[in-house]
C-alpha cells in the first residue's frame, strides 16, 4: 500500500500564498464576503500561518503552510457520529459531504485545526461562469470540509496506472499546492517507495512533524533548519 506523504521545506517557502490560491481554485472552495471573512469565516484548506517572534529589530518570521495533516491515526474520524469523515483505503482522511450532519465535532477534535465549515450557503464568483473544477464536487451549506490531498487527482492517476498495468510513478500524483509552489517547497509522493524524494526528505535531519508527540502520525513533514 502506498504511503502518501507531503514534505514542506520551510527554508524554501517564502510565504507567497500561491498554495492557498491554487487549493482554492482546484477544489472549488467557496469565497466568503468581507463581513464573514473578518468574523473568521474564511474557508482555507491550505492556510499559510504567519508568526512574528522576537522584538524589533531582531525579528524572525515563521510561515507555516498548513493543509490537513492527513493523520494516520486521525482523531477527527473517531468522533464523527455518522461516518461522514473516515480514513479511506488510500490512507487519506475523506469527507462525505452528503452525509455530514454539520455537528462540527470533527473540527473540535482536530488538534491541527484543519477543518472548515460552510457557515453560509457557499458562494463563488458571481455570474453564469463559475469555472468549477469538474473533478471535485461542490459543497453545500452546513457541512464540514478540509484538504483532501487532492484525492481526485489520485483517482485519476490510479485509473491511468491500472489501464496501463503499472505502478504509480513517483511524482505522478501531485496535489495542486505542490504543483504550483513557486519556491518548490512542497514535495509529495509515496514514502513506501524508497527512491522517492519524500522518503528521503522525510528522514532528513531537518524533518519534523507538528506535535509528533500526540501520536497521530501526521502525513505532513516540515523541513527546517531552525527546529
Amino acid at each position, binding site marked *: 500500500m502506498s504511503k502518501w506523504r507531503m514534505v514542506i521545506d520551510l527554508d524554501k517557502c517564502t510565504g507567497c500564498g500561491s498554495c492557498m490560491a491554487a487549493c482554492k481554485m482546484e477544489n472549488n472552495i467557496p469565497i466568503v464576503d468581507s463581513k*464573514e471573512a473578518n*468574523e*473568521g*469565516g*474564511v*474557508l482555507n484548506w491550505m492556510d499559510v*500561518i504567519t*508568526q512574528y517572534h522576537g522584538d524589533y529589530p531582531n525579528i524572525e518570521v515563521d510561515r507555516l503552510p*498548513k493543509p490537513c495533516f492527513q493523520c494516520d491515526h486521525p*482523531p477527527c474520524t*473517531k*468522533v*464523527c*457520529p*455518522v*461516518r*461522514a469523515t473516515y480514513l479511506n483505503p488510500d490512507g487519506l482522511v475523506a469527507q462525505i459531504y452528503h*452525509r*455530514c*450532519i*454539520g*455537528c*462540527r*465535532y470533527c*473540527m*473540535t*477534535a482536530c*488538534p*491541527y*485545526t484543519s477543518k*472548515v*465549515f*460552510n*457557515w*453560509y*450557503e457557499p458562494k463563488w464568483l458571481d455570474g453564469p461562469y463559475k469555472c468549477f473544477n469538474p473533478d471535485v464536487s461542490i459543497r453545500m*451549506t*452546513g*457541512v*464540514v470540509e478540509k484538504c483532501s490531498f487532492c484525492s481526485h487527482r489520485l483517482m485519476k492517476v490510479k485509473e491511468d496506472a491500472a489501464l496501463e498495468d503499472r505502478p504509480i510513478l513517483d511524482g505522478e500524483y501531485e496535489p495542486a499546492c505542490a504543483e504550483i509552489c513557486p519556491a518548490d517547497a512542497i514535495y509529495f509522493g509515496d514514502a513506501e517507495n524508497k527512491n522517492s524524494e519524500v522518503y528521503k526528505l522525510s528522514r532528513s535531519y531537518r524533518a519534523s512533524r*507538528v*506535535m509528533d508527540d*500526540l501520536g*497521530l502520525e501526521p502525513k505532513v513533514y516540515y523541513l527546517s533548519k531552525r527546529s
Partner: protein
Amino acid sequence: MSKQKVNLESEPEAALFRPIYETGKGYYIVIGIFIAIFLWAAFMYFNQIRFGLGVTGMNQTITWGFYIVNFVFFIGISHAGTLISAILRLSKAEWRRPITRMAEVITAIVLAIGGLHPILDLGRPDRMLYLVEAGRLQSPLLWDVTSITAYFTASTVYLYVPMIPDIARLRDQGGKLKWLYSFLSWGWTGTEHQKKVLNKAINILMVMVIPIAISVHTVISYIFSMTLQPGWHSTIFGPYFVVGAIFSGIAALLIVMIAFRKVFHLENYLKEIHFKYLGTLLLIMSIIWFYFTFSEYLTGIFAAEPHEMHIILYKFTGPFAIFFWGMVLCNFIIPVIILSFNKFKTITGVLISSITVVIGMWLERFIIVVPSLANPRMELPMGIYIPTITEWALLAGGISVFILGFMVFAKIFPLISVWEIEEGRKQGLKEVEERIHSYLPGTP
C-alpha cells in the same frame, strides 16, 4: 381572573390544587410574554436554517459556542430533578415530599430543552436521521444521544408514575381536561394492590435513574475529554461535570421552589427548613465543585504542559478572565459566604446564592467550551467569539420554554405531590420514628 367551579372544600390540600383551577390575569400576561420570546427565538432559528449557521458568532476556530454551552448547561440543570429526588427518596428524607415533583418536572422540561440544543447546533438538521441510519456507536456524540434518550425516558416515567394518584384525584374532582386525566390515571382507584405496585415501580425507577443520570453527564463530559484539546482532555471531567450538574440542578430547583412558593402561596408546604436543608446541600456541592475545579486547574498548572498552560493563563488573565473569575465568585465565594452563616441562610440568601450559582455554572460551561477552541494547539492567531443576537434569542427561547413548560405544567398538574404529602402526614411520622429507632444503639 378565571375560576373553574370545582369544589375544593373537602380537599385538605386545596392550596395545591388551586393553581390548576384559578388563573389570574398575570398568568396570561406572563405566558404571553414568554410565548412572544419563544416565537422570536423560533423566528431566529428559522433564519438560521435559512441562511446557515453563519448567523451565529461561531467561526472556523471557535466552532462551538452558545448552543453547546447551553446544551451542557441545561442538561446539567436537569440533574436537579430526577437525581436529587431519587437520592432524597432513596435516603427516605422526609422533607423531600414537597420537593420531588418540582425537581422531576425540572428534569423533564429542561432535558427536553437541553436535548434539543445539539440539534439547534447542527449545520444540517435535515439530515438528523442519519444518526439512526448511519450512526456510529464509536462516536461520543452517539453515546450522548443514547444516554440522553434513556434519561429522558426514565425521568419522564419517573415523573409520571408518582403522579398517577394525583391525576386520579384530578379526574375525580371533575373540571377541565377530564379526558386527559382519565387517560393518564390509568384506572387508578387507590387500591392496596395498586399502591404496592406503584411503590415498587417508584423504587425500581429511582434506583435505575441514578446511574442513568450520572452516566448522562459523564458522557456529556466525554464529548470534550475524549478529544486531544488542551483544557478538555481531562480524566476528572466525568465526575466534575456530574458534580457541576447536581450543583446547578439544586440551585435551579431552589429558584423554582422559591418562585412558586411566592406565586402560589405555598408557604405552608415549602418551609424555611426545606431551604435550609437544600441550602446546606448547595453549600456542600459548592465546596465539592471547588475541590474539583481546584484539582483540575492545579494539575494543569503544576504539570505546566505548554498548551494546557496557555489555556489556563488565557482563562486566568486573558479576555476570558472576567468570565473565569466571575465563575469563581458566583460558584464559590458568594454561595459559601452566604450559606455558611445561618444569619445569611435565609430564603433570600438562598435565592441569591442559587441565582449566582446558576449564572456561575453557565459561565463554567462557557469557560470550558470556548477558551479551548479559541486557543487551538496550532498557534493560530486567536479566534474571537462574540455571540450574536440569534444565539441570545435562542438562549432566551430556551429559558422561556422552561418557564412556559412550568407554567403549563402547573396549570394541569399539582406541583407538589399531593398524595405523598398526605402519605407523609399519615405515615411519615410513624415511619420516621421507627427508622430513628432502628438507628439508635440499644434498641432491638
